[in-house]
């Protein structure tokens, strides 16, 4: 704070007329800058001298506002809130304008609503249960609306906002391509490098290609891509829809006869479903390229042998399995992102929370579903 270093625009003298009766003459401005200093000075003075009678002389005060009134009120309180031992000497009636307008006694009524911080454990528990049940209700009705929106789109294809869908596809897919490619390339590179250390001991260099191909296409490619998309776009869905929610834009859409879920969720969901598998495909290719670099430059494999080993390993089943996973992940990311957006309530911080929770929940669900897929596959 810069103002405290400055000299206050206010000073005072203390005169003791007779024993125990003090008069304090205040000079200058009684505003927000001098208020806290005056209160402190008065409280130390009253504590050290404990006067029986106190007069505050305002004849030299040049400015007086409600902060000045606050000082007088505090002084009165310090004097024990009695009227007979405290007097304001105000010959120029400088306080009249303010004191006619305010009444500190009336301010001490308690506020209507008790702030939540003082609630006990049980109340908090109950409240959070209520919040969760409300969230569950929103979630179910949201899933229902999504379902209805898709039926609507199937029966009336025009109700899908095509231009929004294209914009979303660009944001989710095209703009994510560089980062997804880079991460996947490095991932393939590292995978090949680490596995080659082991496989080299058995002279099984060529299986590095198989390992990278299988590992990426059926497992890491879909997961990596989904995590990147969740971080980039899932959070963006939640933040966009959340800020629309708190600024009543969603209500405006509803009042204009739009179905908000159809209007906002469907384009994002369809865009994700189309684009995420394609991104995954690119991720696989770049990872295989990363592996190829290690294979060719470290393991002295020829490029053709690496590629043909890769193609041999990758069956049609592996490729569709990976694509199907990334389809499911796309559904998860877009549903969770939009749902968190629609659940936003309150102010700007709620938007931030929605974005965070969209990313955390979708990554959790992605890993969870990935485990389901792994179990499913072992019983295939």
């Amino acid at each position: 704070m810069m103002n405290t270093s400055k000299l206050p625009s206010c000073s005072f003298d203390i005169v003791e007329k007779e024993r125990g009766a003090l008069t304090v003459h205040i000079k200058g401005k009684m505003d927000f800058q001098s208020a806290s200093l005056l209160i402190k000075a008065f409280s130390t003075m009253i504590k050290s001298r404990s006067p029986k009678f106190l007069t505050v002389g305002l004849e030299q005060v040049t400015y007086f506002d409600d902060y000045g009134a606050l000082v007088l009120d505090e002084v009165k309180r310090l004097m024990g809130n009695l009227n007979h031992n405290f007097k304001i000497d105000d010959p120029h009636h400088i306080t009249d304008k303010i004191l006619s307008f305010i009444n500190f006694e009336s301010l001490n009524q308690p506020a209507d609503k008790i702030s939540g911080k003082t609630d006990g454990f049980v109340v908090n528990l109950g409240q959070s249960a209520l919040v969760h049940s409300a969230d569950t209700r929103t979630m179910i009705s949201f899933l229902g609306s999504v379902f209805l929106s898709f039926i609507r789109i199937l029966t009336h294809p025009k109700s899908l906002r095509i231009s929004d869908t294209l914009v979303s596809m660009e944001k989710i897919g095209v703009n994510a391509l560089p980062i997804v490619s880079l991460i996947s390339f490095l991932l393939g590179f590292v995978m090949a490098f680490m596995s080659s250390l082991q496989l080299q001991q058995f002279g099984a260099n060529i299986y590095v290609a198989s390992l990278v191909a299988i590992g990426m296409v059926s497992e890491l490619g879909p997961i990596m891509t989904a995590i990147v998309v969740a971080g980039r776009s899932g959070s963006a869905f939640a933040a966009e829809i959340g800020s629309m929610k708190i600024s009543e834009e969603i209500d405006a859409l509803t009042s204009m006869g739009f179905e908000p879920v159809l209007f906002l969720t469907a384009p994002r969901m369809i865009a994700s479903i189309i684009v995420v598998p394609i991104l995954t495909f690119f991720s696989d290719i770049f990872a295989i390229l990363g592996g190829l670099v290690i294979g060719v430059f470290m393991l002295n494999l020829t490029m053709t042998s690496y590629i043909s080993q890769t193609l041999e390993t990758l069956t049609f089943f592996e490729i569709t399995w990976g694509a199907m996973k990334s389809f499911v992940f796309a559904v998860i990311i877009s549903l969770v992102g939009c749902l968190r957006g629609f659940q936003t309530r309150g102010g700007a911080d709620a938007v931030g929370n929605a974005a965070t929770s969209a990313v955390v929940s979708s990554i959790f669900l992605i890993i969870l579903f990935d485990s389901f897929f792994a179990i499913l596959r072992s019983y295939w």
Partner: protein
Amino acid sequence: MGKEPIIQVENLVAQYGEDVILDHVSFEVFTGEIFVVLGGSGCGKSTLLRHMIGLETPSSGNVTIDKVNITTCDDHARYDVLRKIGVLFQSSALIGSMTLAENIALPILEYTSLSKSAIEKIVSLKLTMVDLNGYENYFPSELSGGMKKRAGLARALALNPKILFLDEPTAGLDPITSAEIDELVLHINKSIDATMVIVTHELDSIFMIAQRVIMLDKQTKGVIAQGNPEDLKENSLNPLVRQFFNRWSKPLA
């Protein structure tokens, strides 16, 4: 008080990108007066206000507040100027994650070192002023539009600023509350000698509170009238100005 300018705007050019919104606007606001900025929707009133409080940098021209040129001054000087002004934004701009009491206490905590109980008193005083006592622990999202306006006004008043900028303080309020806000404005103007720069459309308010007005126009991107409202209503040479003050609709061309 005398006629001493506290705000001087000289040849202000305001631009958003290529769009010139205000073109060479100059005027002065005198100490202690209630100065009203008028004009049709979208003519740049909020833009003018944002430039006057230094939120936007003008493409050219100067704004001087209390002898400090805020377009060129350093951060320290700007901080000193900001302490002297209070602003009510058109959208109230209360911080959504804080209760009303916390919103109003925000500038008080920043600029004073008063105790918690003293701040509580000032806060409830300010809320009482705008008739919102008892709503200390409400969040802005739990208030009506008009209540948010009044809470924003309370926050602008928190430090009894020397200069108050109010962007449409009565828009969206019922006539009784509007009249009360007008009275409050007059009262604040008298009791703490605050200079007020107010954007408003409400004719009743204008005639009740304005000591001097300027009227902006979208076509000319500048001031088309300046003076006392009663005077302009009767005697302005500009038909648009008379139209505005007499509430005539545009002639059908």
